[in-house]
């Protein structure tokens, strides 16, 4: 994985010193809160309901064991012994003091981490496929380009005061696990006839108040043009994006208002005006970065491991975990281990410092020192030998990390909601916890099959409810929380925005409603191969509406 050189180290150290100076000027009253706000936000520091929240960047979701141990230490020293992994592959701490933030950042910088641009109207942490470099279906590892983009976008002088935040996702695989169609810019790698790699550039997707699927502005952009082209898009957005209304300020609204053809024409015109002086420097940098992402020293192993197969046959709990939490690796004899941070009744994405340390140890011993954060708020050990899976599972189980529910009903995405967030209109964590308890039976979860339940506590949609197969949106009316249910969303390759099923439910009613929806699916499906999403796409909302609302109307 990427390692800092002397320049990266110096950069982050200076950035910490700069923030320390800014925080001191705020504490002394020299800066007003209004002036300080964008400065602290550019360092990921939010003022929440009860305390400051610090969002630490985990670039493209990749962590070393040492970095994970430091995140655990920070949780113990500056927070309450836990952290929260987010849908943008970052980690958040919820109980931070402004006076201590610079020291915290200095400790992170020692392990090559920072909180730069995890908030604010700038280019945020670049996210990617959490199986990058390991997935069997991948064309090439997208992380070198993601790291190039991280550096390019860091304190960019022209693009630090955009109309609104800006999120870029990158994938190198045909099966989209990075949700590239619902980002401000999504980049998807393709190969041409000659075997060269280029990028499909998708612009204007997003969730929030106005969920939209992005459109492809270029089908196959040569890699050498990538940064110049992105600069053209950013410039068009910076100049013409709306600034009169923060809810209409994302690039998706500009694309929508200009129309796809006019937007493309603006970008192409700007691209043709750009001077391409630095392509050689960029290519040198990309090559330098790529060397860090060379595949680890995989052993040559047989396709199947006897130890693993024996354990699989003998231990049904292990077998169940393998079926839901293990994914195919590109190398024979290896596997991708997905660690669920969604235990029964737990807070989605939360991990204690002890859990973080146990995962760090596993990464050290069994996964070439690598850990990933997924945008489903789970963690990944990307390179585990099949021979070691049983040992890894036992350690995970001892740390309450072996819940066999990846991609199933219990693997719920939820934002912090009204328990922490100043924007929230309703609670989301308790809803997630109740649904998780309701579907606690893992056999039943496996019988139901792939199901994404996503919960947001307000229309800003941090819980990605629009792209949940079942989406739950918490709202408030006259002081009472209620929840709107959408069906049919997906952030995968065939991305779609869910649509509202009907009138909302109170918090207490939500688990029963979900139960009814799931039962209806089981009744309607044509066998176990037809997934929940398949059924919605085949049969539409009608059977679900009938099951949910008809009894009430008959009364």
């Amino acid at each position, binding site marked *: 994985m990427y390692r800092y050189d002397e320049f990266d180290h110096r950069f982050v150290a200076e950035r910490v010193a*700069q923030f320390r100076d800014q925080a001191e000027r705020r504490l002394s009253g020299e800066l007003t809160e209004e002036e300080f706000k964008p400065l602290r936000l550019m360092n990921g520091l939010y003022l929440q309901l009860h305390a400051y929240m610090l969002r630490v960047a985990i670039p493209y979701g990749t962590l070393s064991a040492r970095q994970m141990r430091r995140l655990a230490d920070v949780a113990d020293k500056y927070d309450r012994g836990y952290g929260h992994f987010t849908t943008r592959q970052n980690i958040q701490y919820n109980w931070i003091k402004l006076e201590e933030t610079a020291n915290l950042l200095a400790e992170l910088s020692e392990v090559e981490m920072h909180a730069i641009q995890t908030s604010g109207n700038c280019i945020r942490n670049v996210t990617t496929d959490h199986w990058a470099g390991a997935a069997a279906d991948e064309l090439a590892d997208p992380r070198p380009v993601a790291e190039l983009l991280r550096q390019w976008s860091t304190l960019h002088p022209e693009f630090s005061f955009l109309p609104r935040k800006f999120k870029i996702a990158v994938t190198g695989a045909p099966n989209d696990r990075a949700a590239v169609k619902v980002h401000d810019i999504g980049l998807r790698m393709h190969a041409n006839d000659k075997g060269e790699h280029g990028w499909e550039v998708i612009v204007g997707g997003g969730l929030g108040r106005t969920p939209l699927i992005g459109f492809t502005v270029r089908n196959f952009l040569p890699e050498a043009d990538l940064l110049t082209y992105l600069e053209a898009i950013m410039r068009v957005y910076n100049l013409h994006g709306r600034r009169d209304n923060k809810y209409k300020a994302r690039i998706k609204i500009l694309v929508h208002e200009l129309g796809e053809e006019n937007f493309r024409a603006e970008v192409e015109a700007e691209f043709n005006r750009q001077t391409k002086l630095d392509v050689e420097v960029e290519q040198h940098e990309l090559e330098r970065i790529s060397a860090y992402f060379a595949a680890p020293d995989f052993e040559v192993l047989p396709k199947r491991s006897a130890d693993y197969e024996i354990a699989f046959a003998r231990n049904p709990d292990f077998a169940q975990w393998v079926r839901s939490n293990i994914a195919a690796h590109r190398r024979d004899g290896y596997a991708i281990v997905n660690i669920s941070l969604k235990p029964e009744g737990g807070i989605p994405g939360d991990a204690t410092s002890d859990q973080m340390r146990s995962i760090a140890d596993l990464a050290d011993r069994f996964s070439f020192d690598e850990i990933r954060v997924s945008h489903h708020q789970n963690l990944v050990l990307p390179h585990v030998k099949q021979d070691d899976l049983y040992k890894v599972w036992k350690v995970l189980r001892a740390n309450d990390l072996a819940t066999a529910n990846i991609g199933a009903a219990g693997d719920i995405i939820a934002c912090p909601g009204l328990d922490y967030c100043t924007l929230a209109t309703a609670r989301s964590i308790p809803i997630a916890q109740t649904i998780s308890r309701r579907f606690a039976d893992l056999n039943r979860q496996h019988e139901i099959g792939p199901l994404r339940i996503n919960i947001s506590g307000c229309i800003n949609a941090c819980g990605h409810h629009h792209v949940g197969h079942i989406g739950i949106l918490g709202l408030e009316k006259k002081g009472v929380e209620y929840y709107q249910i959408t069906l049919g969303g997906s952030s995968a390759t065939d991305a779609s925005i869910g649509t509202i099923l009907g009138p909302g439910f109170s918090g207490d009613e939500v688990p029963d409603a979900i139960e009814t929806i799931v039962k209806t699916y089981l009744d309607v499906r044509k066998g176990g191969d037809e997934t929940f999403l398949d059924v919605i796409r085949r049969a539409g909302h009608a059977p679900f509406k009938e099951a949910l609302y008809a009894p009430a109307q008959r009364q």
Partner: protein
Amino acid sequence: MPLLKDSEIIADTWLRLEDNASVPATGDIIVPFARLLAEFGKLSKRRGRVGIEFPNAERAEVLESFLPALSLVALPFPKFADGRAYSQARQLRQLGFAGELRASGDVLPDQLAFMLEVGFDTFEITTRFSPDIWRRTAQGLSLSYQPVKQQKRLHVWRERQLRGERSCRA
């Protein structure tokens, strides 16, 4: 309003003319862009330099034919968080404008380094902050991942390439 250039407060020799103010026969003047369009012939014949205040909503390209006749372009920041002028500054420099680029409006110390990098030379500032803060914030960090204008700063990618080349030769 104090004017900042190269981290020093300097005298502002330019006179800002509002929409209806009469044009003096000599001296350096800054006129609104609309007046430049309406009175270009007259303005270009007088003695003294001409500058304009260019609105954020205008496209830089429309200035292209005027640029050789202009000695100064002022770009406003209606609020410090409104970053359109950063892109306009870049575009004007890319169009070859070599005169003075001036930042006006809500100009704050913590944005100064960015403004210098996109091509601004002078800054209309308030007296709220000490000259020391402006000096401290002008450079920003000593290095940058983007190409740099300020000579004291390092462009990280360029440095790495140079070092790579040196170590190849050695």
